[in-house]
């Protein structure tokens, strides 16, 4: 589980017009274990959270977030970007240990 990429869901249009503002929605399956909880034996469950999320469109960062234990499990983000050229949109979630989940979608400009 920990070393494999986490399931994600990305909602964004596949095509758009140059200059349009498009909405992008993302979900990632992640427990966002706070580090404040204890297991049945009283031991602290180690913190295990997505600490950083970054979205690049044609290698330019269009949205990023530093996230802490106060972000809900299975983190959801909705944000927007201005459509420029056709190209890849790359989504990278990084957990506290530096493990990454990376997804790419292509935005085609019409």
């Amino acid at each position, binding site marked *: 589980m920990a070393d494999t990429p986490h399931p994600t869901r990305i909602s964004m249009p596949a095509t758009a017009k140059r200059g349009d503002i498009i909405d992008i929605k993302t979900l990632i399956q992640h427990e966002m274990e706070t580090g404040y909880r204890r297991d049945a034996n009283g031991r602290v469950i180690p913190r295990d959270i997505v600490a950083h999320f970054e979205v690049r469109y044609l290698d330019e*960062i269009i949205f990023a977030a530093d996230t802490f234990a*106060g972000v809900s499990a299975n983190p959801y983000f909705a944000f927007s970007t201005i459509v420029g050229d056709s190209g890849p949109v790359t989504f990278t979630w990084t957990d506290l240990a530096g493990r990454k989940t990376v997804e790419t979608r292509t935005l085609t400009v019409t």
Partner: protein
Amino acid sequence: MPQPSCTRILPTLSRRSVVAGATAAALTRSAWPAAAAFEDDGNATAAIAHIAAGREIKPGRVKLVLPELAENGNVVALSVEVESAMTATDFVKTIHIIAGQNPLAIIARYHLGPRSGRARVQSTIRLATTQTVTALAEMSDGTLWSGTMSVLVTLSACLDGG
């Protein structure tokens, strides 16, 4: 139950400051204070003062929307929108979300830029209890604006302990 793969209980300070610093620099191509390393211990006033670093915080321009009554503190829908032209020279750099009754007051920092088109972010957050949440927006000219919202966090009757 999560895998005990991460033995640290608290995040290392260096990773946080490196990650946040790199992001901000890439977005704005300007220097970013290593504010990320600050552990606020649930003190919203301290967290906000640390971000402000002596600058004035003006109320306004930030519309923070949370439900007045949250059914469960585990998932509280958040929407934050900042009035901004979002041009190459006038844009929202960062939005900080702060909740002082949480164990850690800082919930998230959203980094935006001219390419964002509009300064609006939606997410879901955890609230430990009933409290006032603050959104602090840092503009490209360095000014700070804030908006708040009070949320009543209720308890379900039908809890089953997981």
